[in-house]
């Protein structure tokens, strides 16, 4: 006989009734000769039964109307409202203002202009837009082509949307953002847990080629870099493991632009 020794895992699985019959018999026979363990396991079994009984009534309640899945699916399919277009137009106007009215600012003040400014703008935008439950993006994933066209026109260069699905993030959509250095494009992503990431990109006058650097502020983390005059900053909540995702983005934009 070379029976495997009984482990605590076996005892727990015995409580949960997930052991296969042969192993279950071995555990039962072990318990019959170990009264102290048997008492402990019996308590756990009682506890499990009591817990199930105590919480069962919740699952028996009628499902409230706001959790009607059929209705939720129908609401989803309704078309987007017309005012979204007006809001989009307003952002363009803001952007023009950012470029023309404020164009003297960079010349007269010596604030940060390079990668530090970019990282700050990206974090600002994250705070404003990623926390927005109603309209985090101006143009959604369903109009990706329209967004790319719009962003490419406004930035004056071809823009592509990196695919982050291998990192578990879905593209939600994007918008234009006004910065002291002109127009920037913001793309937003989320994962099934609702964690949102923002990729922020604009033309760079200073720091036109910079390696990746990490920034953090107010519970946010960012990775920023620039390449051939285009700056990128990826921002997410602390602990969202941005570095590999940033590498992936750099790899993708490097091959498509």
């Amino acid at each position, binding site marked *: 006989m070379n029976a495997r020794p009984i482990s605590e895992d076996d005892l727990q699985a015995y409580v949960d009734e997930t052991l296969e019959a042969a192993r279950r018999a071995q555990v039962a026979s072990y318990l019959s000769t170990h009264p102290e363990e048997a008492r402990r396991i019996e308590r756990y079994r009682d506890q499990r039964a*009591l817990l199930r009984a105590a919480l069962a009534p919740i*699952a028996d309640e009628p499902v409230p109307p706001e*959790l009607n*899945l059929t209705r939720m699916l129908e609401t989803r399919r309704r078309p987007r409202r017309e005012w979204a277009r007006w809001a989009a137009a307003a952002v363009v106007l803001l952007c023009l203002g950012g470029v023309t009215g404020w164009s003297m600012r960079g010349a007269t003040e010596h604030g940060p202009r390079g990668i530090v400014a970019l990282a700050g703008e990206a974090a600002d935008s994250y705070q404003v837009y990623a926390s927005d439950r109603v309209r985090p993006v101006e143009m959604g994933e369903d109009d990706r082509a329209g967004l790319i066209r719009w962003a490419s026109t406004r930035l004056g260069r071809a823009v592509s949307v990196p695919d982050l699905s291998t990192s578990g993030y879905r593209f939600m959509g994007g918008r234009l953002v006004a910065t002291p250095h002109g127009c920037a494009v913001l793309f937003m992503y989320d994962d099934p847990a609702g964690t949102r990431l923002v990729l922020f990109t604009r033309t760079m006058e200073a720091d036109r080629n910079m390696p990746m650097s990490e920034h953090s502020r107010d519970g946010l983390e960012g990775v920023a870099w620039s390449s051939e005059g285009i700056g990128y900053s990826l921002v997410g909540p602390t602990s969202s493991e941005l570095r590999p995702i940033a590498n992936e983005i750099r790899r993708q934009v490097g091959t498509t632009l």
Partner: protein
Amino acid sequence: MSDMLLLVEPQIPALRRYARALTRDRATADDLVQDCLERAITHWQQRRDDGSPRAWLFSILHNLAMNRMSKARSQPRPVAIEDAGESALVRQAEQPDRLQHRDLLRGLEQLSEAHRSVLLLISVEDLSYAEAANVLGVPIGTVMSRLSRAREKLAQLMDAEAVVHPPVHGSLLRRIK
């Protein structure tokens, strides 16, 4: 999307139960389940086909609950004076035929979130150890050791409850005040 309705809708009662047992508040729990369903609709095509939809839904719900609860901890919610000291979960259990569950639910509330969630996912929601490991984002060995500790801790808490609050009395006196 019609397969989604078929696979997800039957899970809603269990999702509500898990959320409520975890958050101890009906409105918060149903809010979380609603968020969870919305995310499930949006991400339905991206879920991995190899896992069960049930475990996938529990992962979404669990993550949402943890986010919400860590936020709630940093900004405590005002509690009406008559509610203080008695939680939603316990109050609901205190209908006459459920008095016997009172100590257990009170004990459950005193467990850490990590212990409570592992116990609920496995003992009540019947997730496999591997599925629970996935939902909680920890290795399966951690699930096993947490489960063992959670059961022992809950047993101790119930012993303590039985000493501090002899059955029936405590709850009846409380309700009068």
